[in-house]
């Protein structure tokens, strides 16, 4: 978050709110989130389905505008507020300075058009070049993202590409106009692990070569750890914890982050390690729990946590680590010490001094 990039951030999202009116009530998809990304850095946004992570990215590109969403807050890209920009001005930025890669490459490529033609279209939407020049650029980009024999491949249809190649083609399309910011929304979720490793390596290489900033949205903590300099964890439309990646994974502060880390088996841990699921299910974004939205699923919640809504605050001693949790910082520290040494939430509570918490 506090990138060492220096200078003003490339993208700064301030108190962004996105709400969708529906027949059942208002969906609070994004509920006041703030983050920033510097040039050449990678922000990972981690969350489960329905946490609002994709809606935040789509809103950056104005892609939620047509859906009757009410949008509040500011999205500052190089100082310009994208929320208030006219559609025409936003179109000049979208696909040009900011590009996006979606999860499912098969449904994001048009099945009737050749891959090359789709790339050419994206190039000529923003640049006044001849189609021959655009075609050269398309072939060059397909080569850059590692598609073998790009000149021939440009004349193929999406169905002739494998899943990994389609995602490479999507990335090529995102890169056509040398974007400053790449939004990658679950870019590897539909792919097998070995292909995922190829795509992640490709994104890292392109970032090094082209100096883009990347926002990678993922539900996979492993992907976030591999890719991100900074990580924001989202739950029920809010950022509940944000920190530089090494800090977030070594000293997580939020019970939801603990829950995520302890509910997945790891390759490095002992084979018989105990999985501690987070009880319950993610909440409805129409009728959100009162107080701390996580309290119904939090093993450490106190009675007043159902009343008080926590704000994102700096963790004492680490100004670039923020958490929205009502537990005492020292209590959180003791709980995580217990949890990270393999204790269950109940045992951790007992060892960390329940009386103090419950009292």
């Amino acid at each position: 978050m506090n990138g060492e990039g220096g200078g003003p951030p490339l993208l700064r999202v301030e108190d962004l709110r996105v709400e969708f009116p529906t027949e059942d009530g208002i969906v609070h998809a994004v509920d006041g989130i703030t983050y920033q990304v510097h040039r050449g850095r990678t922000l990972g946004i981690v969350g489960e389905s329905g946490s609002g992570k994709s809606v935040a990215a789509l809103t950056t590109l104005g892609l939620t505008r047509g859906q009757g969403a009410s949008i509040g807050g500011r999205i500052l890209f190089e100082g310009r507020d994208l929320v208030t920009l006219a559609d025409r001005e936003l179109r000049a930025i979208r696909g040009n300075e900011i590009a996006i890669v979606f999860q499912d490459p098969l449904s994001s490529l048009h099945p009737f058009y050749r891959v090359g033609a789709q790339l050419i279209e994206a190039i000529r939407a923003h640049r006044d070049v001849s189609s021959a020049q655009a075609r050269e650029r398309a072939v060059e980009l397909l080569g850059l993202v590692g598609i073998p024999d790009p000149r021939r491949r440009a004349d193929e249809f999406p169905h002739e590409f494998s899943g990994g190649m389609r995602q490479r083609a999507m990335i090529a399309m995102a890169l056509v106009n040398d974007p400053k910011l790449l939004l990658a929304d679950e870019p590897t979720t539909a792919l097998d692990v070995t292909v995922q490793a190829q795509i992640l390596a490709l994104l890292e290489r392109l970032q090094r070569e082209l100096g883009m900033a990347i926002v990678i949205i993922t539900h996979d903590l492993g992907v976030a750890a591999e890719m991100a300099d900074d990580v924001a964890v989202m739950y029920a439309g809010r950022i509940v914890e944000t920190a530089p990646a090494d800090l977030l994974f070594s000293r997580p502060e939020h019970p939801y982050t603990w829950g995520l880390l302890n509910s997945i088996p790891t390759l490095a841990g002992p084979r018989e390690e105990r999985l501690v699921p987070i009880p319950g299910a993610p909440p409805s974004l129409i009728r959100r729990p009162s107080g701390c939205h996580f309290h119904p699923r939090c093993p450490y919640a106190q009675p007043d946590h159902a009343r008080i809504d926590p704000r994102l605050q700096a963790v004492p001693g680490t100004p670039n680590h923020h958490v929205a949790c009502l537990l005492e910082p020292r209590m959180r520290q003791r709980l995580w010490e217990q949890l990270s040494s393999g204790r269950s939430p109940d045992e951790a509570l007992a060892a960390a001094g329940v009386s103090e918490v419950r009292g």
Partner: protein
Amino acid sequence: MRADPVEQPGSSAGEGDRRAPAAGAHARGLAGAGEPLVQVRDLVKHFPLTRGIVMQRRIGAVRAVDGVSFDVHRGETLGLVGETGCGKSTTAKLIMRLLDPTAGEVRFDGRDITRLRGARLKAVRREMQIVFQDPYSSLNPRKTVGSIIAEPYAIHSLKRSKGERKRAVQALMETVGLNPEHYNRYPHEFSGGQRQRIGVARALAVKPKLLIADEPVSALDVSIQAQVLNLLSEMQRRFGLTLVFIAHDLSVVRHMCDRVAVMYLGKIVEIGPAEAIYDFPRHPYTGALLSAVPVADPTASRRPRPLLSGDLPSPANPPEACRFHTRCPKAQERCALEEPPLEDKGRGARAACHFPLTREELAAIGVRSAR
């Protein structure tokens, strides 16, 4: 008052006892366990590729499963791992006889079930049940949860009185952690994790010996996955189930399984006890899979990692000899000429490779051997 309807038939042993000694090699040595529950021999499934609409000509075949042999021992969990299109789900469907094999044999409980039909097939099917990946499409949205879970009773003409069925279903719901009062609700009223519990309850209704879980958690949110994994482990312990666990997530398989079979393009390339496979994989494909898994630890994961080159070849036209040789970093001439047999590589594991990985190579590709 409510009798537990899901005691395992034949398992008169105390309920509380731990899962039968399972890890492959041990189970094999156990005289009491007798023969494996499932024996798969040279199993082949080819799906014909045709051209033309009225006059269909056969132009080839997708060789989904192309000669696999393995055993599933009683009480163990066998993991089937591999990437999309490697044939793991087809293998499961062949074991269940949801597909008819092109060649080869499946023996279940000592009997060849490959060519069973009618009532005898139905009787075998009662002993094996499956939990599917997608809890949204595998439950009929127009039926109540009660009737979904009771469906196996209807199919197999069990528990015919209405009251008896309801009691059995409610007991099952309680066993899998659902509120029995929700008997009359519809699937859409449940979350993904709860729906997967419904799927597990339905599978357990007829007290199967074998449970196949085909990617049971990959459609679920991260925080929910552990709920279903823990449920499957608990059910296995409680009812002495034999579990075939299919997944592409290697960490999950390591956590759940006693033995693991790694598949690539319709073949098993490595099989053995989970400790052996994860600690010291010998097949370069297993090594590549393990090194590709992202690790939720930034200090460990910033490492250069070798990537498999190219894409998965088409299973309609797999490479000759060793199928992995086109992408294998260790491939030599021999690999393109001579198919490596699945042979013993120590510690109870077998791999099909002429030039198996060494410890040094493993360290070089960044696979962290766990203890």
